[in-house]
């Protein structure tokens, strides 16, 4: 049966296989159709098998150069025709953000490879998903891409946890995301990092842009070079050294210690006033309400954002060409913090007159 959701089926870019053998070597052994050598290096560095510590991460994902990668790692257990392999990782690269979908697919592929010992079987499954959007899994049932809606992926994180951890300071995160600033998050454990960062883009729900999310970045030249090309991002680092790299961020979140710091050169743009206080209170209230779920909270936040944007829109309409100018803003006699905020927000929403 054909699945005519063309955008979905063409989102998968490639599939790769990494093995760790009894010699302790980790090798990139197979891929289809092709993975560039730079990207391959990055993927190898993300795979937990290449890292010297004994941490074992079943599933990690991240973004590099506007491609999402999803890596599942399994330990090889009997029965299997793979005699010299101790662990293996399956990497799927895709254009879309959908960790749950690709985690499920990865698991199927991993199990298939362990059972049959040949990537050909994996490829059959991959082609089936690519062309038809469905494949039979070894366990009961089948895997359907349409079961994994992208909206579910966006809403999968827990905004309530973020608010409960940072309280009123969540407004800093909100401001940074809304104004398209650079946020650097640090946590020594990658799973915590992924879980936390994936929900932050939901703070600007009206954009539904998860391409600003780079949840797993190492402090290497290649990755940082590509990262610096993005104007605003939410980047997650396991390396605590990132706190010294103030050239990389405007807001720094120390997740284990629950400390948010705004870097010096961004303080002026991130100035906050009464408007922010109101928004902050709203977020807190909504999150503390036990009857409202995460998606409700996000909806509340986005409603408030839409309010502000609508207000900005009316102001813009009063100017010529529907673009706000700073003078017009000044005429409204807002308090300075609010004026500053609206000015930068207009720039972010591209309704500022150039």
């Amino acid at each position, binding site marked *: 049966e054909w699945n005519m959701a063309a955008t979905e089926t063409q989102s998968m870019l490639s599939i790769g296989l990494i093995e760790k053998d009894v*010699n302790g*070597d980790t090798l990139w052994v197979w891929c289809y159709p092709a993975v560039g050598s730079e990207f391959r290096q990055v993927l190898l560095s993300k795979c937990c098998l290449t890292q010297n510590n004994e941490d074992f991460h079943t599933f990690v994902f991240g973004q590099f150069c506007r491609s999402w990668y999803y890596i599942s790692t399994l330990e090889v257990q009997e029965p299997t025709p793979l005699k010299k392999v101790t662990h293996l990782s399956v990497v799927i690269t895709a254009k879309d953000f959908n960790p749950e979908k690709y985690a499920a697919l990865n698991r199927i592929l991993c199990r298939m490879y362990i059972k049959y010992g040949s*990537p*050909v079987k994996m*490829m059959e499954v991959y082609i*089936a998903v690519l*062309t038809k959007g469905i494949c039979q899994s070894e366990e009961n049932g089948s895997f359907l891409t349409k079961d994994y809606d992208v909206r579910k992926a966006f809403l999968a994180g827990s905004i309530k946890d973020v608010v409960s951890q940072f309280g009123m300071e969540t407004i800093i995160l909100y401001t940074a995301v809304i104004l398209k600033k650079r946020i650097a998050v640090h946590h020594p454990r990658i799973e915590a990092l992924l879980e936390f960062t994936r929900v932050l883009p939901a703070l600007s729900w009206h954009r539904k842009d998860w391409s600003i999310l780079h949840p797993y970045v190492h402090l290497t030249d290649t990755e940082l070079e590509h990262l610096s090309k993005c104007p605003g991002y939410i980047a997650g680092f396991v390396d605590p050294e990132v706190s010294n790299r103030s050239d990389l961020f405007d807001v720094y979140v120390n997740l284990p210690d629950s400390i948010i710091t705004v870097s010096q050169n961004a303080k002026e743009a991130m100035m906050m006033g009464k408007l922010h206080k109101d928004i902050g209170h709203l977020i807190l209230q909504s999150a503390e309400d036990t009857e409202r779920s995460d998606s409700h909270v996000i909806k509340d936040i986005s409603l408030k954002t839409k309010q502000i944007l609508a207000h900005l829109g009316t102001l813009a309409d009063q100017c010529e060409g529907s673009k706000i100018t700073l003078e017009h803003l000044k005429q409204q006699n807002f308090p300075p913090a609010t004026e500053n905020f609206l000015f930068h927000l207009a*720039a972010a929403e*591209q309704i500022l*007159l150039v």
Partner: protein
Amino acid sequence: MEEVDKILILALKQVGTELSEEVGSVKDFTSELIVEAVVRCIRVIDPGLGSPLPTSLPPGMSARFRVGMSLAQACQDIGYKGEIGYQTFLYSSETEIRSLLMFLVEKLPRENAEASDQPTGKSAILQRAIAAAIKAQLVEPWLPPNCRLPLHGETQSLGVMHSFHKQPLSLPYCIKDPGKKSLKEVKDYQRDFLPPVTAQLAHNATVAASLLEQHTAELSVAQEWYNEWNSQGLLSRLTPQDYRARKLTRLRKRIEEQLRSAALPPTESAFGGLGATSDLSDILQSFRGSAASAHTLTKGSHFTHSQKFTFTQETEAVPSPARRTDDNHHSQQEELASLQQQFQQLCSDVDQLTTELKHLSVTNAQVLDEFKQRERQNNELEEKIQLKKKTVDLLPDAENNIVKLQALVEASAQRVVNLASQWEKHRAPLIDEHRRLKEICSNQDMESSKKLSEIKVLHDKIRVSTEEAKKKEEIHKQLVTELESLPKDVSRAAYTQRILEIVSNIKKQKEEITKILSDTKQLQKEINGLTGKLDRTFAVTDELVFKDAKKDESVRKSYKYLAALHENCNQLIQTIEDTGTILREIRDLEEQIDTENSNKTVANLEKILEDYKAIRQENSALAAKVREG
């Protein structure tokens, strides 16, 4: 016996006794000699005991008697266990004197062999020489400058002291890079033009310091390289040049990192200009001393105005105070006003520019963002257009085309899977080969590291043994020189030879004695056995014959002869035994005669009689003196 005597005589000579060359053995010692020798020995052994004793016998008999008694007492105090009295000294016998002298000589305190206790080695000798020289110099008394002799000049005047300055030297042979060949020109320069080390320095006094410094530096470099190479260099399995090159790049990288982290990161952000303006505003703010934000730049507070005032006044204070006060005041006021105006103008210009910059940076960011977004959208739209175009082309014959496309896709999928399986056939063996070779490699690695550690152990052993060998050689050299310098009076080798000969002789004698003893035992056993046999035979014969003797006459006669024969033989045996005993007694008596003879008893008796007569005379003389008065 001669060797013992020689040793005794030598020892006594060392103590200080005057012995003439004729005195060859203890037998020749006279009483005076004996007394002198003993007293000197006692003086060395125990000065407290020995000092009151005279070294020569006084002439008077009673005095001699007294001296003999005190000597005997002293010897007993020292610990001599044998029988000793005045007679040992006055009427001496050879054996007694020999044993006494041997005891005393053994008691003499041994000289400590200094050399064997101190550490050996050339440097130790040098240090000892230096210590001795310094000690000698310290012992010399300090003299005031006028009284000093030239030879004191070196040690007691201040003029010769130099501080430890060093200067860099240029030496043709450098340890730094033994593999590097120097250029021909450098070699020529070194050969023809480079002055010798002593001429390279300005001050003659710095030669020693510079040379020491140079050598120590080179030595420490070599030592460090040796240590590093043996610990890390061998492990890295690189050639020395590669290892050095790697180390160099590593150090460079580290320096770069340090510099990078130490230097403040430039305040550049993606909005390039914003950083520069914030710098500028910072500077301005520090100028003015106010903490206002950007939006208050246009306002000037009372405070800032007064600040400006003081600032301009300072510049005004510099020009010379020599101007006339009235005109000065006016012109100064005018200048002040104009400068203030200019300054205000500049400030407002700067403020304006700052705000403009900020605005521009923000809009710049916005535009960039928009541009990127639009580009992406363009690309996406292009792709979509392509797709839609193709679909539109295929639309007319939709059903067929869909079927065809499906078939095409399936065929491609099949083909791709086919290709994958073919590739797999090639790939799998390669990966296996790779893994197998890696295993072999790691095994070899383990083996080579084991061998490396063995090499290290061997190195250490070699080093230790070479050091020990060097030390032993030095000790050997030293001991040989010392041996040569020792006095050759006494030939220890000859003594040791004699001792060994005597020991072997004794061993042989012991063997012979044991042999003789065993022979004797054997004979005794035989005798016992034969005696027993004889008795038994006689008893049996006796009985037999006696039984028949009662009846027959001839038998009775033969019985009488038998008894007589037995009796006579017994007597013979007895006589032989007696002869043997008597011979033994004769031997013993002869020995006793010999020993008694050597005691010089007769001579001593005569001497004693004479002395007795002399004492009686003295006694009578003394008694007469006492009676007289």
